């Protein structure tokens, strides 16, 4: 795939690198890279891949741009608020480099569509903010034989690693299972705006190296970054022979969505809308409600329902005894996801009839009390 005169001018600084040169730039032009998640990580990664001349660049995200994204998601600006991230990002990348083809995938990645989507790409970058999606991406890449560059962030800390099927461990080798109740994402825990800039550009660097076939990729090497201490650490991680997807006897042979809540659990959880909970709290004849807010401490401090107690979801397994004496606790979080995980934990511990505030405090603020600050 030869370069035009315009492309030779645009990529002159790459052509001057003996490690890249015309051959490497032509490989970049022929490359098809999918960036899953147009967020803090996907923004810088996609911008640099577009600028570098990655010939086909896919951007997958089902969300819309929010004001709180702009602190770190440099792919977007204020004029893009409420627009589809995939579409707004596609326009920005096409404007940055009209020589490349940019495809917008404004949809949610699922087991049902992952094969068809990944089939059109040679390399995948994972910048999603859900652990369940990280496992889906990893499993699909292993099964389809696609290299994957994965990064993740939390507050001031980040991780990045490259997975090449047949050449080292996969994501499940490093972290075989997601924790019960998940781990906090950026919205829940906060994140330094520039942090994903560091990790996302590392992802783009790895992608360019893999495509050009130069350097030493982060295969079998987990790189961590602590922005507060300004330290990088590198750890050797080996493939697990008992890995569920890339091991010697894999039990996962098809991409799959995370297991839904077991029917018995789903049926045993009472689902309270904000309106119903508000009525119950006002009803003097109703039994006293025990409200348990499972958000992080800083979120609780910013604003919470009167009378609620704070037990962050991560601490709940060892603090279940604190709520065991109460009948029918009501679990609360920001949007209803962590509180449902808390209900499941409570049921497994034998606590009867836990309730979940559907839609969380965001729903409460939208329908009952717009003055409630929700971090």
């Amino acid at each position, binding site marked *: 795939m030869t370069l035009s005169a315009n492309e030779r001018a645009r990529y002159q600084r790459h052509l001057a690198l003996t490690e890249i040169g015309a051959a490497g730039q032509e490989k970049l032009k022929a490359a098809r890279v999918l960036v899953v998640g147009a967020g803090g990580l996907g923004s810088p990664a996609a911008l640099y891949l577009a600028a570098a001349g990655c010939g086909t660049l896919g951007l997958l995200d089902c969300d819309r741009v929010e004001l709180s994204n702009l602190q770190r998601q440099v792919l977007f600006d204020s004029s893009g608020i409420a627009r589809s991230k995939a579409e707004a990002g596609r326009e920005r990348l096409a404007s940055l480099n009209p020589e490349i083809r940019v495809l917008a995938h404004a949809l949610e990645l699922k087991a049902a569509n992952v094969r068809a989507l990944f089939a059109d790409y040679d390399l995948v970058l994972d910048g999603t903010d859900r652990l369940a999606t990280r496992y889906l991406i990893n499993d699909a890449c292993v099964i389809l034989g696609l290299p994957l560059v994965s990064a993740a962030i939390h507050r001031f*800390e980040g991780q990045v690693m490259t997975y090449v099927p047949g050449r080292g461990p996969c994501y499940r080798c490093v972290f075989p299972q997601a*924790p019960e109740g998940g*781990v906090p994402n*950026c919205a829940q825990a906060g994140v330094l705006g520039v942090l994903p800039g560091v990790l996302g550009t590392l992802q783009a660097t790895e992608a360019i190296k893999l495509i050009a076939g130069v350097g030493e990729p982060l295969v079998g090497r*987990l790189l961590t970054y*602590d922005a507060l201490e300004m330290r990088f650490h590198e*750890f*050797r991680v080996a493939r697990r022979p008992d890995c569920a997807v890339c091991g010697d006897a894999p039990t996962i042979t098809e991409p799959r969505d995370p297991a839904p809540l077991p029917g018995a659990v789903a049926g045993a959880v009472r689902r309270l809308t904000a309106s119903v909970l508000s009525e119950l709290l006002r009803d003097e004849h109703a039994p006293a409600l025990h409200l348990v807010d499972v958000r*992080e401490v800083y979120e609780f401090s910013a604003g919470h329902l009167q009378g609620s107690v704070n037990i962050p979801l991560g601490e709940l*397994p060892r603090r279940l005894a604190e709520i065991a004496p109460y009948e029918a606790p009501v679990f609360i979080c920001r949007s209803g996801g962590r509180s449902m995980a808390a209900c499941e934990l409570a049921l497994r511990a034998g606590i009867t009839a836990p309730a979940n505030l559907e839609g969380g405090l965001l729903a409460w603020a939208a329908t009952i009390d717009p003055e409630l600050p929700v971090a």
Partner: protein
Amino acid sequence: MSCTVRIASPLRSYTAGVPALAARGSTLAEVLANLEQRCPGIRFRMIDEHDRIRPHMRLFVNTSEARELSAVVRDGDTVHVICALSGG
């Protein structure tokens, strides 16, 4: 034996935000027991009821992964506690 334990960001609520602590012990089990005395509850976030490292946690002694609590820790070593992160 004295070592340094570097704490993953999601567990720093147990260490008052401190990223690294000194701890004593000649095995990973002893180091974590020592850490637990000063940071109650932190061990349970890493190790389950069957003394297994939780599948979303990884422990390293210097740069080598420790998959068992019997892993040897020497004077001056650094134990790294790594946690799966989900933010993007």
